[in-house]
């Protein structure tokens, strides 16, 4: 069910929508933070936040309020908020739009979040390539500081908050939260061992909350509407997956875009209503629901949940494309919601080339710290290249599932699963296509990731 909302995206497309005047006019600019910092206690903020049922927007879908509640005041150490704007997941570019078009929501979100978790400093870790995003954030912070919102006494309160932008160096792995903390500290961007978790020992060894940028940007809206009301806008409120969020659709659709909707939209709606349908009105070959790490879904797959107690039972027998996009619903169909940015592949796309393309990405981005990921990602990519080149044996194809299974769960960070799970998805769902290459029935040079369509259809927008 599509429910259009316009909280975070009100300023999108407005003249100078990224500046403070627009934010004040359109988004109750900083009134929410003022109210929170001057009238609420820290504990009340966290309790209220829990009611929003906001599932982290960074990919893992961890409940944000619960994460905030892990923060315990430390006798000697300060606490930090670190905002994850590394956005490197292929197929995902939602955070970038917020930074470019509504940066003040991030700054205001930082104020409230810092107050809630007991931090006085927020670092926003931005992927290096996003130059406009960094500039807009810096400008927004400067505007907010000039007005006294950010600084020693925000809104006249005695709760100082500073917000800094920190630039990454363009490594996907630095989006993994502990890797990001290392990078923030000037170290090599390698994930840390857990425990300790960031809430125990995060940046500079101090208690830290890491949240995705969209998670933080949603905070003013949440508190403005009331967190319970915010949650209830979602069709999956009962599954504790609340609120509104940015949905993305990209790939072979007529209208790729980022749009704000209440949680509850299905993949089919994303393709046809939001995305305007498949390019050239072709059939859908498959969909990657939320960034490259989430296993691929095919239109012919259906939900199997005959047991009434199964939370997926309401969709029993239905196509997976008709299941609302949610953290637990996507888990229920064997994939993940991830970043909620749907990548659509039209019929005609070569799934083997797509598979190899993804594995090349993982091979290139593995930090190389732990053995199974370092070597396994390279091995997967190498074998797929051989398959495409018609040089692989059936035995080598058979081995692929074993390589992926040997990575799965055996690594330091979730990058390993992020590689193995999509690999297993492609294997399970595109075995005949892979075999066709091994048998020489298909040739790598003919493989395409783009699909051809009539120019007139492109202009359908």
């Amino acid at each position: 069910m599509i429910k259009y909302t316009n909280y975070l995206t009100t300023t999108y497309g407005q003249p100078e929508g990224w500046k403070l005047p627009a934010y004040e006019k359109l988004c109750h600019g900083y009134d929410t933070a003022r109210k929170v910092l001057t009238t609420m206690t820290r504990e009340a903020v966290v309790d209220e936040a829990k009611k929003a049922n906001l599932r982290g927007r960074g990919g893992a879908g961890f409940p944000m309020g619960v994460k905030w509640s892990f923060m315990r005041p430390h006798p000697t150490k300060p606490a930090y908020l670190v905002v994850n704007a590394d956005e490197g997941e292929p197929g995902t570019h939602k955070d970038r739009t917020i930074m470019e078009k509504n940066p003040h929501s991030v700054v205001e979100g930082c104020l409230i979040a810092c107050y809630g978790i007991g931090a006085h400093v927020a670092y926003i870790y931005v992927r290096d390539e996003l130059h406009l995003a960094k500039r807009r954030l810096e400008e927004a912070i400067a505007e907010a500081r000039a007005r006294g919102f950010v600084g020693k006494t925000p809104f006249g309160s005695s709760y100082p908050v500073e917000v800094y932008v920190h630039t990454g160096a363009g490594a996907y792995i630095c989006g993994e939260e502990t890797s990001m903390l290392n990078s923030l500290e000037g170290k090599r961007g390698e994930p840390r061992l857990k425990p300790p978790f960031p809430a125990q020992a995060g940046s500079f060894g101090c208690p830290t909350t890491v949240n995705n940028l969209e998670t933080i940007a949603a905070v003013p809206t949440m508190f403005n509407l009331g967190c319970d009301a915010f949650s209830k806008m979602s069709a999956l409120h009962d599954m504790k997956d609340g609120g509104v969020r940015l949905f993305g659709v990209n790939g072979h659709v007529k209208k790729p875009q980022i749009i704000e909707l209440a949680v509850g939209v299905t993949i089919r709606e994303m393709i046809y209503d939001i995305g305007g349908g498949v390019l050239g009105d072709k059939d859908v070959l498959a969909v990657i629901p939320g960034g490259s790490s989430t296993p691929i879904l095919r239109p012919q797959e259906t939900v199997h949940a005959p047991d009434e107690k199964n939370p997926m039972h309401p969709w029993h027998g239905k196509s997976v494309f008709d299941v609302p996009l949610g953290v637990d619903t996507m888990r229920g169909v064997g994939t993940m919601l991830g970043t909620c940015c749907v990548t659509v592949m039209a019929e005609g796309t070569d799934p083997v080339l797509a598979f190899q393309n993804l594995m090349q990405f993982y091979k290139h981005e593995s930090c190389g710290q732990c053995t199974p990921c370092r070597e396994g990602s390279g091995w997967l990519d190498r074998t797929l290249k051989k398959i495409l080149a018609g040089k692989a044996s059936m035995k080598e194809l058979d081995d692929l599932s074993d390589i992926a299974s040997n990575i799965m769960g055996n690594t330091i960070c979730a990058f390993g699963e992020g590689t193995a799970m999509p690999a297993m998805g492609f294997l399970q769902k595109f075995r005949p296509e892979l075999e066709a290459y091994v048998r020489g029935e298909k040739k790598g040079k003919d493989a395409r990731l783009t699909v051809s369509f009539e120019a007139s259809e492109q202009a359908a927008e």
Partner: protein
Amino acid sequence: MPTFKLDDKTIPFEPGDTIIQAAHKQGIEIPHYCWHPGLSIAANCRMCLVEILPAKDQRPLTLDILEWDPVAKDYRAVKKPKLQPACQFAATENMEVLSDLSDHVKKARAAVQEFLLLNHPVDCPICDQAGECKLQDYWLEHQKTQKRMLDEPVHKPKAVSFGPTIVYDAERCVMCTRCIRFFDEVAHDPVLDMRERGNLNEIFVAPGRQLDNKYTYMADWVCPVGALTTKDFRFKARVWFLRSVKSVCQGCATGCNTYLDYDSRFNRTYRYRPRENEAVNKYWMCDDGMVSYKAAHEDRVLEPRVEGKTSSLGVALEAAKKKLDGVPRDSIAIVYSAQHSLEDNWALRELGKTLIETDRAFWSGAPDGYEDKILIHKDKNPNTAGVKQLVESAKPFSALVEGLASGAIKHVIALGGATPSTKEEADAAATALGKAETINTNPTHHGALTQAAAIVLPASSWAEASGTYVNFKGIRQQSDKAIESQGSSKPAWQQIGLLARALGYEASWTKLRDIRTRLSGLGEGNAPVHTTITDPHSTEAP
């Protein structure tokens, strides 16, 4: 002590111990590359994965994986338990851990092995690590399959000089980061790091720096594979031809425990390997110590000498008798050596105190030198504390120089070849020693005392004779004989026995055992005889 179960064994542990640590203390090895008992935890190799059975009220953590069924020609979705690294996972009371008994663990180990060897050059025939390499050992224990990836492996830099002592081979490196951590955490010289990403990773030396500090040899010993080797040992020997004895480094008063590796076919020492001893050197040794295995063959005194001329033992003993017969006993000084074992010094004490009955006792040794806060002691003698225990009245060497200068002392019966004189003092010492009518010494090596001696009876070095040494902490440690005595050298305690007899005394000792039984009471209470504390796998590096 709380316990947990590892396979079918009950393992006690101290709160805070990881699974691998607790097992290690019991002498049980869980396969590992990156874990080292003396370094921080990296948990990157994933070789130590174990299965932890869920507690009664806990749901097992499982993962979905895929298996290809060649008969059904389809994939089968299966579940496996989430394994945990034993090097990182803390032991808890009554926890049940499966290691060798879990098929999932076996599969994970084989997989890690296969991954590690995927791009490995398998140049074992020209690798110095061959025969003591974890990759080889674990292949045999945990993998035993042929390579599935038959394409050209990833190539990386080979034979990169990291500094004056160490060579790096990136293709053999398993990226365990032990070397990085060692130089950071133990040597306090963080010059190594990792660069690149994914399977192009390599270890490198900080730009503008070299791997050049007092602990570079440890790079070879923390590295579980043949990626870091010493220029000294490179291409010198195949390790399976080498034999080892438990030895004690003679370089300073720390007395680091070590294995002395030698080839009996050539009667040569080849290298030292640090030997674990929590109370002394932990797992480490310094570079000066590591190269001092060479001392068995360098600068040695191997033939008896009389008045500077090489002679036979009989002639030398005869000369000693002639010179010392009938001289007043208080004109004879006995000079003990902090460079010699308790046994050697005991024999000298027997001769000096009991037989000749002179009270003039002094001690000698090498001069002080460099020290640090890690291992290196400024006292460059292995047995200063032992000599002090044995002959409390022994006076410093400067007192001997005075005695000789004043003419009160005319004859010297000494052990060792070195004097503790600094360069400035050396001339005064030489003049004084030159005044002596007789100097008789049993040195292993050349030195000021050897130079000045009229009669030289060559002594076996520590490599050629078993001996006991007391380090600066008062810990008594035994060092075993490796090679056979070279030239005409004999253990000094034996030479002294011969000298005693030549001088007409009845020496009560003929065997090392005679001395050891009489030494056993010495320093008891505060000086335990103490070769190794934890040494579960006698010759294996951690």
